[in-house]
């Protein structure tokens, strides 16, 4: 049972009561009906690459692994779609579509391993979201089983479905509403070319303003990423990508599409970045150099792993114009907590991933890292953002959810959950905090003297 005790948020482990690995929809249905009749909780698991504890088992419950649902059922190039089972890996879809000149756009960092069912459950993102959207924008149809064992098809093979947009609800529902047994995804033509500009800045502020400048210049890059000095040094030492390690920050800006379109956009991006004070601007001359530019960005997490025994990856989104301010305040928090923070993130859509460096062998340091992470997420909400851009809430962000949403909204979330799963058996305790939890959290985080959830008893 040990292999099932956690997902990629390995600080939390729970041994499930039972793990099942069905092979057919009928077997999944039988498991769900049995669990429903006996009121046994069910946690669905894909590859377990989730970073927020969304697939953490329940001690008295069943861990339902969909690992065996790993077949690509159909690639339909004429209709530019693929019909796949939920356990198919994200990258495997693009590999299967490649002979037709097509690919599946959303590319979470874990795309080699993560599954499409998990991507739908978490509404996963990646580098390309600014231009190509999240999972919710790239899924046409989902077939799922309810906890009662009813098979429902949401969406259609066209570009929209009949009835309410329940497909939108399923994307990002973190396994609370149903068990996904089939997904139809949209495929896009592989871009003719892609080129990247690397721009170095001597201040975080200038880099942040350059990011806003790129968007203002009517450009929608395929990727617009940023790394701070701590991350640059760590990645350069790891992959030797030739990064300017003296820079305070580096911005990577990628354009893709037709050759002429990319040339025009890259030229404009260079001008904008230089105009915002870039001390150095490099342009990828060929595919090898483009890959080199990205090598460090893609290896940033393991690179940080080499310079600290442990790190804790946060995931919040903020309005782009607040980037410089928020990064400054994260620096202040880092000093206050005595824990270093590296920043490497999707600047184009404001999706931050502060990496808090700590050492779990020092008593209390994990707790300090978590408290710092929570403050960063609260800060994201304070400036008009959100507590999660792509990792999901899981168990990790239940407290900050109490800051982002009020009682009335949380009640609606619970009511929606009940509309799908009246007994609350699917992935209980995840994604949506109980009001009692929020009351507890609010007691220690009174903002501006206003007590949150005053209508609730304190516990």
């Amino acid at each position, binding site marked *: 049972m040990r292999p099932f005790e956690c997902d990629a948020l390995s600080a939390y482990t729970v041994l499930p009561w039972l793990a099942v690995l069905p092979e057919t929809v009928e077997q999944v249905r039988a498991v769900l009906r049995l669990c429903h009749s006996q009121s046994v909780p069910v946690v669905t698991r894909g590859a377990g690459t989730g970073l927020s504890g969304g697939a953490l088992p329940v001690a008295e419950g069943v861990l339902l692994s969909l690992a065996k649902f790993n077949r690509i059922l159909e690639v*339909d190039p*004429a*209709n*530019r779609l693929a019909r796949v089972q939920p356990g198919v890996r994200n990258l495997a879809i693009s590999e299967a579509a490649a002979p037709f*000149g097509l690919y599946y756009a959303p590319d979470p960092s874990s795309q080699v391993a993560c599954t499409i069912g998990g991507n739908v459950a978490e*509404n996963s*993102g990646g580098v390309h979201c600014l231009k190509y*959207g*999240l999972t*919710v*924008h790239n899924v046409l149809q989902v077939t799922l089983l*309810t906890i009662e064992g*009813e*098979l429902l098809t949401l969406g*259609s*093979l*066209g*570009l*929209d*479905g*009949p*009835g*309410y*947009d*329940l497909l*939108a*609800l399923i994307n*990002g529902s973190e396994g609370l509403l149903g068990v996904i047994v089939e997904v139809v995804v949209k495929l896009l*033509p592989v*871009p003719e070319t892609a080129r990247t500009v690397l721009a170095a800045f001597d201040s975080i502020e200038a880099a942040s303003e350059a990011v806003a400048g790129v968007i*203002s210049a*009517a450009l*929608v890059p395929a990727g617009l990423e940023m790394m701070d000095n701590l991350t640059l040094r760590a990645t350069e030492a790891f992959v030797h990508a030739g990064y300017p390690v003296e820079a305070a920050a580096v911005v990577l800006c990628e354009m893709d*599409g*037709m*050759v*002429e*379109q990319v*040339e*025009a956009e890259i030229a404009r991006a260079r001008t904008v970045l230089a105009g915002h004070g870039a001390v150095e601007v490099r342009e990828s001359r060929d595919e090898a150099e483009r890959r080199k530019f990205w090598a460090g960005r893609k290896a940033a997490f393991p690179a940080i792993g080499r310079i600290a025994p442990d790190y804790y990856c946060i995931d919040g*989104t903020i*309005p782009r*114009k607040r980037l410089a301010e928020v990064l400054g305040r994260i620096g202040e928090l880092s000093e206050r907590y005595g824990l270093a923070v590296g920043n490497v993130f*999707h600047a184009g859509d*404001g999706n931050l991933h502060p990496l808090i460096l700590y050492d779990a062998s020092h008593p209390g340091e994990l707790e300090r890292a978590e408290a710092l992470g929570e403050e960063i997420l609260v800060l994201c909400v304070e400036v*008009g*953002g*959100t507590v*999660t851009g792509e990792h999901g*809430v899981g168990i990790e*962000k239940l407290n900050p*959810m109490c800051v982002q949403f*009020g009682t009335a909204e949380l009640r*609606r*979330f619970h*009511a*929606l959950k009940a*509309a*799908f799963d009246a007994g609350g058996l699917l992935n209980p305790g995840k994604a*949506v905090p109980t009001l009692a939890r929020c009351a507890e959290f609010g007691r220690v985080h009174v903002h501006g003297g206003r007590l949150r959830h005053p209508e609730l008893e304190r516990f």
Partner: protein
Amino acid sequence: MRSLDDSENLAGRVAEACARGEPLRIQGGGSKDFYAGPCTGQPLSTRTHSGIVHYEPTELVLTARSGTPLTAIEAVLAESGQMLGFEPPHFGSDASWGGTVACGLSGPRRPWAGSLRDAVLGCRIVDGRGKVLSFGGQVMKNVAGFDVSRLMTGALGTLGLLLEISVKVLPKPECEITLSFECSHVESRERMIRWGGSGLPVTGLAWDGRLYLRLAGAEPAVSTAVRRIGGDRAEDAAGFWNGLREHAHDFFSGEADLWRLSLPPAADTGRLSGAWLIDWGGAQRWLRTDADPDEVFAAAQAAGGHARLFRTLNPQAPRCAPLAPALAALHRRVRAVFDPAGILNRGLYPEAA
């Protein structure tokens, strides 16, 4: 443009109606009444609740109150060289922002730039009890909580009165050219499949007896695409796309029932007969026919999509095929989450009734 926050009054009106169990008919500009269908209840206008609340060109985000005229929003975006990527139909000069989102319709650009639903980032609503609620937000990536904002899109106001909606906007392309081709229905399908998925900067692909292909982007890219494809420059291209989007095109005049079929672009509609106009590179097909509704519903479903009776003179005609029983029951439960007394736009969403 008038700017007024009337949310308190609107919430109060809904709360009173809820207490009395009286149905309300939410009214924007009335330009899409034909689409929503007949509905009972006291009228409740959102026109007094208007104005752009927030617009930040560098953020590509706009937030507006539901009573704001759609034309006003488009004018403000145009001043900054931006636009609504989903190119929504107005269907009349009075189209409001709330009605646009409540109907959830998107124009010819949809397959390549995303739908209205895809652009929605957040909303404030009044639910059926008169409670003001906020979902989503104003940032591009937000996966906290269930995606209620997109659920509201296209729900015809039956899940809540929309107060404010935030959407992602896009830069206007530098250059736009439309090509047209003499082309049969069968030939057009083959070309739509080929060009629609080619990676060329396509932003429109429609057939009305001739095939129209709209290209947009940087000037050198559009010029290269034109050279690769060939064909003639279309006359009055703007008029064509506008006529298609607004149903001012000749095809849409007349009294026969107008159907919208949403299908996989390469799908065959079998023996379904009538007059066709194809949009969205084959994914949206307009049909004028006297065929039995059940025949149209069945043909669309068999092709992997669905059909809606879009315009009809028969108010009793079914607009959509019935949902599967378990799905219909779920729709009713979802509706009850937001409007337990069923007072909002009663009758407009028979799937959830």
